[in-house]
């Protein structure tokens, strides 16, 4: 899926929300209520996610597609706290819960209770393993592999890589790391000469990279997990080293830096991450399930890629200091569902 298509889809939301529900053969959902259960709000990605939800789900409520679409965020990012929150949402009588989970397994009990009470549970980004819930997952391994594959096209002779990992012990970090490892195994001309944890935060990544750089040989490429590329770039700059190819993670400050570097010296790289708007895809999927559509339990959402050609366009569409985003429409959700059915 190209970005321009996705952006076009975003622009069409206002129209699609009203029209699509009218022409659908599915049953009415206008008296149904959907809740978003979110475990964390403390970074720019999550803030963009909540805003996307507000925008798309709010519009859907206005147009009478659903009766309510309320967002709830726990304050401490704890699975126990979120489990209690889910119990509350069941008691409040929501018809569907869209869930970004603090843990893939610790919420299974609460999710089971929701299913037993007849509530539709759709998990996304942070998915849950409980079989009764739907999962909108990102192929994080692919995200890691693709970075190495891209570097292989740029550096056919290979070279030294620095890996910046996320938060230790988190599922997503292990998955992306496994993908990068698989990519390096398939492309043995590359060697990972250093690895640090940047916790998906620019300042932590900057600190970690600055600390390990003095002991490293020349670095040709940096593989990342998103939210850490700009910090790495600043550490390389401060150390007075040649700028390697840093794979970026769609943050506006990263893309802005990339555009400046490109204008200065023809710098080329790739940027990829999950769009925070995946929450809106989860919203429409839950709406489709409520409407009676047959939806496979496991759906995959493509990640959002920014290339040299789409950089300017994406940068212009991304608010200052935020992250590149895509808002999904009801048709997008229907298409993702149809694709998943075909693949079965």
């Amino acid at each position, binding site marked *: 899926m190209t970005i321009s298509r996705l952006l076009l889809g975003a622009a069409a939301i206002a129209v699609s929300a009203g029209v699509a529900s009218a022409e659908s053969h599915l049953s009415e959902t206008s008296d149904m209520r959907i809740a978003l259960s979110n475990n964390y709000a403390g970074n720019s990605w999550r803030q*963009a996610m909540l805003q996307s939800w507000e925008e798309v789900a709010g519009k859907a409520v206005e147009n009478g597609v659903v009766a309510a679409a309320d967002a709830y965020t726990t304050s401490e990012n704890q699975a126990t706290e979120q489990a209690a929150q889910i119990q509350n949402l069941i008691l409040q009588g929501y018809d569907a819960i869209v869930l970004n989970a603090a843990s893939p397994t610790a919420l299974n009990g609460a999710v089971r209770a929701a299913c037993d009470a007849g509530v539709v549970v759709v998990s996304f980004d942070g998915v849950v393993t409980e079989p009764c819930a739907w999962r909108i997952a990102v192929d994080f391994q692919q995200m890691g592999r693709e970075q190495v594959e891209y570097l292989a096209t740029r550096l056919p002779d290979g070279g030294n890589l620095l890996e910046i990992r996320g938060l*230790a012990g988190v599922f997503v970090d292990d998955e992306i790391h496994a993908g990068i490892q698989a990519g390096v195994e398939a492309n043995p001309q590359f060697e990972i000469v250093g*690895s640090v944890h940047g916790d998906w935060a*620019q300042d932590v990544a900057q600190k970690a990279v600055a*600390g390990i*750089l*003095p002991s490293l040989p020349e670095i040709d490429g940096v593989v990342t997990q998103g939210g850490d590329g700009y910090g790495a770039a600043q550490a390389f700059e401060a150390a007075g080293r040649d700028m390697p190819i840093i794979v970026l993670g769609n943050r506006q400050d990263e893309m802005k830096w990339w555009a400046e570097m490109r204008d200065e010296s023809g710098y080329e790289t790739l940027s990829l991450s999950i769009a925070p708007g995946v929450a809106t895809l989860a919203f429409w999927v839950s709406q489709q399930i409520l409407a009676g559509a047959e939806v496979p339990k496991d759906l995959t959402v493509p990640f959002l890629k920014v290339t040299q050609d789409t950089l300017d366009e994406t940068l212009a569409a991304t608010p*200052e200091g935020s992250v590149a985003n895509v808002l999904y429409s009801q048709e997008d959700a229907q298409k993702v569902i149809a694709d998943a059915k075909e693949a079965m």
Partner: protein
Amino acid sequence: MEKIISRPWSWSWLAAALTFAITSALTDGSGAGALAYAALSFGAFAAIVGLGQMIVITLGPGNVDLSIPAVMTLSGTLALKAMGSEPGTAMLGLGVAVLVGLGTGAANFALIYALRLPPIVATLAASLVYQSIAIWSNRGLRIKPPAGLADFATGRVLGVPNVALVGLALAIVVWIALERSVWGRWLLASGQNLRAARLAGVPVETVRASAYVTVTVLASVAGYLLASFSGGAALNMGQDYLLMSIAVVVIGGTSIAGGLSNVPGVWGAALFMFLVVSMLNSYGAGAGVRMVLTGLIIIGIVIAASTKRARK
């Protein structure tokens, strides 16, 4: 030599020097200089918040400020928003940061004093409010610092990072206040025995209030500098500094029981905390091994420093 070793701050400096030597062994000649430069840059932030935490911990058992990360985030966010990347607004931003520090410190102490909440509970609860204000005020958008301020924060004078010079200046101010002023004597007296200090005529509540305001002002300044240094404030920018602020105080030789503070030790410990992570990263230790080793090394230093003190 014996006299130097017996000082509680010597252990953190010894540990920092040792980790520096071990990490430098992996680098060629020029690497050591780069490592020292990075340690001074990033150590400065830990040292500044550590100085504040040290003053509070000196007040005695139960006194600690857990709102440091939220205060750093709030001050960085509000200061950068106020400056809006406009040139020549660095002082305005600093003013906003200091005001945030004064306000949050006063609020923390109001909760502790008026509601008689334990400081751990009061500062933790208040930090949720500060974090929420930071989220609400800018929804996590990163605003770039003015170019001049960013250049200053990442720049150097005579090869020493500017942020380290600021950290050093603040350390000297705190050292003079603790060692040479009446306020410092009052603080130590309150930390050693609050009741005795009160009976001796020390205005203990004023001393406590000033300590809780000082720590948030220092955290605010650190947040302002860190946001300028790393190209903008982020909602999770303070996260690293909660345990860090306490660790540098304890490793630095300040008594966790209160009544004894140690300024040079905080700087040594701040350098050490950066260098130990760099050392383990450079030797390719995984995240699990790194955390276990960091924990063990910290415990080792604390034991070494405290047995030395006990024997005296």
